[in-house]
């Protein structure tokens, strides 16, 4: 099981994110068994692996939803102990989960500002300001939401929901440093996928690092700089995007 790291080390700074020897088990199941993971600035890494390989667990550890049983997490060179969702967000780690983690019965503005509402006099919500910023944020994604901000998010289309989720993570959050996307193009049509991939490339240009989990190899090759492959809770391969192909990646994923 050779680990072949062949990407160009362009920046000598600390990587944005570095995880060493991460272990996590649930009962008797070893979800992650000693995984190292690095993410550099302005880099897009595609995290690959079959179902049950440990991708979601690794993502949840990076975003603080789970705490690792063993191993260390470094953010911009500094060791982080006990990461929780709030502190992950404060650091600038944003996530767009596969189910988008939206609130279907609440309106667009409420979704965009969920967990970090803008307040007046420290307790009262500043609805007007939030609505104004919401419109601006949505505009930047380029995907139009034809209705009012009072629309329930559950009634939007798949692409529009993604626009809301991305707006929340990217534009409303301030300046994110790392964005994790779990199956971003799943369920999207051709046009919407293309728009989404363009947004991902734009994000990279503005200095944001992205971890992408996807089963769609074609989409991954369109945007990723590097591939990391997990299998059975371990990292079984790492390749620069221009030094590998679908067949090799699939072989690593299934263990052929």
């Amino acid at each position, binding site marked *: 099981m050779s680990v072949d790291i062949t990407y160009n080390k362009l920046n000598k700074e600390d990587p944005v994110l570095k995880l060493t020897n991460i272990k996590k088990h649930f009962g008797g199941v070893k979800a992650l068994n000693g995984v190292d993971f690095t993410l550099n600035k302005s880099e897009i890494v595609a995290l690959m692996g079959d179902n049950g390989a440990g991708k979601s667990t690794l993502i949840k550890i990076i975003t603080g939803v789970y705490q690792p049983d063993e191993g260390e997490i470094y953010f911009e060179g500094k060791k982080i102990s006990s990461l*929780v969702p709030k502190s992950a967000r404060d650091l600038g780690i944003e996530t767009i989960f596969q189910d988008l983690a939206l*609130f*279907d019965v609440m309106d667009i503005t*409420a979704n965009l500002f*969920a*967990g970090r509402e803008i307040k007046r006099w420290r*307790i009262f*919500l500043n609805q007007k300001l939030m609505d104004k910023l919401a419109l601006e944020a949505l505009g930047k994604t380029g995907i139009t939401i034809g209705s009012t901000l009072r629309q*329930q998010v559950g009634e939007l289309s798949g692409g529009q929901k993604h626009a809301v989720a991305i707006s929340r993570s990217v534009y409303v959050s301030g300046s994110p440093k790392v964005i994790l996307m779990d199956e971003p193009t799943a369920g999207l049509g051709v046009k919407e996928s293309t728009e989404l991939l363009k947004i991902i490339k734009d994000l990279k240009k503005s200095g944001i690092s992205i971890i992408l989990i996807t089963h769609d190899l074609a989409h991954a090759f369109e945007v990723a700089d590097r591939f990391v492959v997990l299998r059975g809770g371990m990292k079984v391969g790492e390749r620069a995007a221009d030094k590998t192909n679908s067949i090799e990646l699939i072989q690593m994923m299934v263990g052929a």
Partner: protein
Amino acid sequence: MKSITNKSFLSKINPFTSYSMSPTLIIVYILMLAIIGIINPIFIHLKNFQAIATGAPLIGIVAIGMGVVILTGNVDLSVGSIAGFTGIIVAELLFLTQIPAIIAIMIGILAGIAIGAINGFIVTFVGVNSVVSTLGMWFALSGLSFTVAGKAINFHNPGLQKLGQGYIFKVIPNIFFIMILILIIMYIVLRFTQFGRNIYLVGSNGPSARVVGINVKKIQFLAFLFSGGFAALAGILLISQVSFGSSLFGIGWEFKALTICVIGGISLNGGRGTFVGLFLAWIILGSLQNALTMANIGVNWRDFFEGTLLLLAIIIDSIRAGRRGVT
């Protein structure tokens, strides 16, 4: 930004298609006033409204507390026994000692909050389903009430009497005023503060709330403090109306409060409904009870009627949730 929904008037008052229950409830109340008013004109008389405003606010206060818990996705079926139990404590205190009424009230409310804290602890920390655990609490507290107060506990406290039986401006019962005050404060909290927003977020999608950094357990725990505290307040106001405490007080209150909440549009799935709807539902149910009493319909038939209403409300709530596709 104003809502420019294209929904027609009919779809807004249809409980199955409208977002809020309030339009439906307003129509229902108007119909009620019209129909019952024709059958029994006393129904629309000021004195009758006064009667409703004297008898019904207590359950309204309990419903407000329960509403907070339901919004977070749980339920508190122990509120009736909390009301009865804290009423007994305060009655006993006033019977045995000469402490000022205000102190006794504070002790009673603190007791209610403490019981709410136990409920909250069991549900959020231990992880027991709230229906089961609050039912257990109801059972335990009822038993405790009966052992502490074998018979009615009479006390004499003019201060408390004035509170429970007095009027503002000679027409508005004190307890009605208290209920409206609490209603307005809680409405403001829920609609305009971050805490209130968190309650809705937690109730509408707990896992998502966790993801965006909200302490879901803390919010759910705090909700129980509201239901316990308000139930205690209601229990204390009840004993102040009649100057005695009894272990029979508060029985059945949880179901009445639940009916008010669900009919008011506060969905059992959590995260949906406002206290405007709760208020309208309170008016409707209070008026209904008043009308049934005037028609000399016995207590048991009334219970049957209200129980059926509760079932109906739950069914409508379920259909509404299904149509929206619950997260």
